[in-house]
């Protein structure tokens, strides 16, 4: 390079520096442009274009960093440097951060705007140079067009590298506050909307979208100016390169608001559906906001007249309109995203409270319906299963819960879940731990049978109609379903159309409405209950024992409700399974007839003997239930010497039966039945309903006011320990007192003639009290299924002990299979797994065996 040239270059460079500094520092004076052109042209000719560009950009950066950026961040400095606690004080200030944010953005965008103009000046200069250059030389030259992007990149990188950590928080707070403001403005129109439109579960069809989007009335100006302000902030933020940070900020603000809206709407009230409200709200508030924002930013192009520019993307529109479809799609994506989030939030909320919701079922069915729709959308059924099983284990399947409560919750669970899951797959998974747990409980079968057949509400949480048992309910449901079938057909087209529009239906098999409905009916509550017990035979057997107990303790022959229950059981378990029970009930019907025949004839004949009138007890007091014992469960028989007067009645009665029914005869079960007594004291009397043995005991105290237990036991023909157990009923009622007897093991019992002193005061009133024996005080007439089983299983005990001696410990299954394999000779092993389990738990209770990790071993 020549020296002269070098001087020329230095000259030009110095001029360029001066001019560009003047330009950049200039107070809006762009007149430097024309003077800059020859200087830049000269430098470019000398091949110094890169230097020109870099210097210029560098100067821009310097200026921008030192003036605009510093000033910009200073606005936020008080917040960013404050402690976490103090930051809250900022947040609650009314116009914070909107005021400073707008101001700061305005300033920096002004500066940026000016600098952009400066860049344009240089771009023009470079361009005119490039235009004068021969084509092939252009390559070497700095492309004028790259200058502006480089500048823009510089702006955002300077800002991002100096960004305080908490600036995104400020943006987030800004959007949250603005959205809440918008929400409260929109609340009015959204709520009035709610009243008009009551069509639930309506998906976003076109008209629906519009109703929310057509902004009209007084809110328009208010909310459009609000959106305009927000739009301006967003535009400015984009302008300084914060596009994605801004989008993150308003996205998370929208999501946050949606979440709190879902929480607010959902609450702890399960009796109303909230899903529809949430969806409505999404359309009314966040989508409105996004639509307005995107439109303002030019991302969405208004179409048609007025504000109804928003069209559903699902509606058919000519695809030949580019630029319209695209931004609408953005909004649709938002809609999908928000709905998904709402579904998921509501779903998680409901799943978390599913236990309570099911406790409230069926009142809580709207919440269940919501949950169903949510799960259909999200497909996260497994979440429900896992969460619900763990809450079951934690809250229900514990020693503290009664078997009845567990069963009732199980039934509610079945009812609730079959709505959500017509195929029963999840119900199967959820029910398994409940069933397993119940199988380990001794009173499970009894509770199930009671729940199925007893309408008197023996259960704790007596929901449902009084006098209504589960069987009745199941039957009524079945009848209702039959009727509903008819309506179903009328609606099928509509349903199909509806299902077709649900494009996100997860499983095409489930989407078949016919199949869905059929399956729904197939979730068979009774079948599930039977599966806990193991087999229907066991259920029937237990029912028979309970029925026998009930019938033998009746003091009348009224069995209408039992007949009804039997009819229902016949429907479900078949006539032949219920044959024995039917004979038992038939015995009661026959007994009623025979009883009245015999009594009529006995009373007639006793009238013929006038002297007998004064008989101690009249034939009138005796009633008898006459059973076909072959068809009844084994009866507990105990010898009992009843009072002579009663014995006389019994033998008269039996004689008359033999006369009427010959060659049939009666065998009395003297320990069974019920006796109504009136105990008469001085001036007062008390009635009791007791078992014959209690009657026999107390009647002996008429002849003698004091008895020793030994003498009394001999007199009424029962063992001493048995007497002592029974006589305690009378001492507990204050009729007898107990005192030391002649021997250590012999006690003396004496009548308390006037009952207690307290009662003495009420002599004047001649009060009548009545006592009914409670279940614990009562006698069991029939051997329980458990006792029967124990008897039958005892033969296997020695095999089990032998096996465990050899193998150490064994699982239930293995014991079962081994018994099946080896006990083939008489008595061959024919018990079910449940029966074995119940027997083994008896052995554990007797401390013969113990369990460890689900294995049985001998107790050492």
């Amino acid at each position, binding site marked *: 390079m020549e020296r002269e040239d070098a001087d020329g270059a230095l000259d030009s460079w110095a001029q360029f520096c001066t001019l560009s500094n003047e330009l950049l520092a200039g107070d809006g004076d762009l007149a430097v442009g024309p003077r800059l052109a020859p200087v830049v042209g000269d430098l470019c000719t000398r091949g110094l274009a890169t230097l020109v560009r870099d210097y210029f950009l560098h100067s821009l950066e310097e200026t921008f960093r030192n003036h605009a950026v510093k000033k910009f961040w200073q606005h936020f400095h008080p917040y960013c440097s404050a402690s976490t606690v103090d930051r809250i004080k900022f947040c609650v200030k009314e116009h914070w951060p909107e005021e400073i944010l707008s101001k700061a953005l305005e300033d920096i965008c002004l500066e940026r705007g000016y600098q952009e103009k400066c860049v344009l000046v240089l771009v023009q200069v470079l361009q005119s140079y490039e235009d004068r250059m021969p084509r092939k030389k252009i390559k070497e030259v700095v492309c004028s067009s790259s200058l502006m992007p480089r500048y823009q990149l510089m702006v955002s990188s300077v800002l991002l590298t100096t960004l305080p950590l908490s600036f995104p928080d400020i943006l987030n707070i800004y959007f949250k506050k603005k959205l809440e403001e918008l929400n409260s403005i929109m609340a009015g129109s959204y709520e009035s909307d709610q009243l008009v439109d009551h069509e639930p579960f309506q998906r976003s069809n076109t008209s629906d979208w519009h109703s929310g989007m057509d902004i009209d009335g007084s809110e328009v100006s208010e909310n459009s100016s609000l959106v305009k302000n927000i739009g301006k902030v967003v535009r400015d933020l984009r302008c300084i390169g914060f596009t994605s940070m801004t989008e993150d900020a308003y996205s998370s603000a929208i999501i946050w608001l949606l979440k709190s809206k879902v929480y607010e709407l959902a609450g702890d009230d399960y009796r109303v559906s909230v899903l529809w409200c949430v969806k409505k709200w999404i359309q009314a508030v966040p989508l409105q906001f996004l639509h307005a924002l995107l439109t303002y930013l030019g991302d969405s192009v208004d179409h048609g007249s007025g504000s109804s520019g928003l069209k559903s993307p699902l509606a058919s529109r000519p695809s030949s309109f580019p630029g319209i479809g695209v931004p609408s799609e953005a909004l649709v994506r938002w809609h999908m995203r928000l709905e998904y989030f709402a579904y998921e939030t509501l779903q998680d909320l409901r799943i978390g409270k599913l236990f309570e919701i099911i406790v409230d079922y069926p009142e809580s069915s709207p919440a269940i319906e919501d949950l169903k729709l949510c799960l259909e959308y999200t497909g996260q059924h497994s979440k429900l299963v896992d969460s619900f099983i763990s809450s079951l284990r934690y809250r229900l399947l514990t020693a503290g819960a009664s078997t009845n409560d567990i069963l009732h919750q199980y039934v509610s669970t079945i009812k609730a879940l079959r709505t959500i899951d017509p195929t029963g797959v999840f119900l199967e998974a959820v029910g398994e731990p409940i069933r397993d747990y119940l199988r380990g409980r001794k009173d499970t079968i009894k509770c199930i049978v009671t729940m199925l057949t007893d309408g008197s509400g023996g259960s704790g949480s007596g929901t449902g109609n009084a006098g209504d048992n589960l069987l009745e309910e199941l039957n009524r449901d079945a009848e209702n379903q039959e009727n509903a079938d008819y309506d179903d057909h009328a609606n099928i087209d509509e349903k199909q159309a509806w299902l077709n529009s649900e494009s996100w239906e997860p499983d095409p098999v489930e989407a078949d409405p016919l199949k869905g409905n059929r399956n729904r009916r197939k979730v068979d509550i009774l079948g599930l209950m039977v599966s806990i017990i193991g087999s229907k035979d066991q259920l029937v057997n237990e029912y028979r024992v309970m029925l026998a107990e009930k019938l033998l303790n009746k003091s009348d022959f009224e069995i209408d409700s039992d007949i009804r229950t039997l009819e229902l059981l016949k429907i479900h378990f078949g006539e032949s399974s219920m044959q024995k029970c039917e*004979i038992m009930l*038939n015995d009661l019907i026959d007994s009623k007839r025979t009883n009245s025949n015999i009594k009529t004839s006995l009373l007639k004949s006793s009238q013929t003997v006038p002297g007998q009138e004064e008989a101690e007890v009249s034939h009138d007091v005796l009633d*008898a239930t006459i059973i*076909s*014992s072959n068809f009844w469960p084994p009866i507990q028989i105990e010898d009992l010497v009843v009072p002579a007067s009663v014995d006389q*009645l019994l033998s008269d009665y039996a004689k008359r*039966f033999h006369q009427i029914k010959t060659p049939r005869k*009666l065998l009395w079960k003297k320990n069974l039945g019920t*006796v109504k*007594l009136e105990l008469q004291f001085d001036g007062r009397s008390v009635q009791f309903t007791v078992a014959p043995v209690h009657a026999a005991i107390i009647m002996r105290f008429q002849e003698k006011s004091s008895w020793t237990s030994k003498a009394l036991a001999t007199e009424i023909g029962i063992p001493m320990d048995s007497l002592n157990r029974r006589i305690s009923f009378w001492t507990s009622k204050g009729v007898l007192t107990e005192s030391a007897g002649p021997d250590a093991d012999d006690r003396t019992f004496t009548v308390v003639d006037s009952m207690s002193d307290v009662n003495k005061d009420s002599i004047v009133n001649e009060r009548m009290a009545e006592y009914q024996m409670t279940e614990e005080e009562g006698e069991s007439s029939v051997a329980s299924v458990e006792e029967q089983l124990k008897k039958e299983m005892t033969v296997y005990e020695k095999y089990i002990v032998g096996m465990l001696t050899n193998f150490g410990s064994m699982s239930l299954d293995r014991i079962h299979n081994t018994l099946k394999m080896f006990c083939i000779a008489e008595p061959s092993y024919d018990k079910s797994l449940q029966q074995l389990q119940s027997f083994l738990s008896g052995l554990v209770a007797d401390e013969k065996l113990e369990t460890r990790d689900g294995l049985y071993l001998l107790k050492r």
Partner: protein
Amino acid sequence: MKVKILQWHAVASWTWDAQDETCGICRMAFDGCCPDCKFPGDDCPLIWGVCNHAYHLHCILKWVNSQTSTPLCPMCRREWQFKG
């Protein structure tokens, strides 16, 4: 103290006044019923032959009707005659 019985509801079982326990034809208990019947007792009575063997009425009737020649008692092979 005096005790007045207001009601004594007793329980009894019925049985056929027969020597055997089961019917020699169907092998079912007399106190049960024959295979054709649903309910025992009056619905499915017993009947005695002059030989003093008892059967379910329905069982012996079926037996008698199935015999081509003079019916015999299935137990003692004497000629079957209903006991008056």
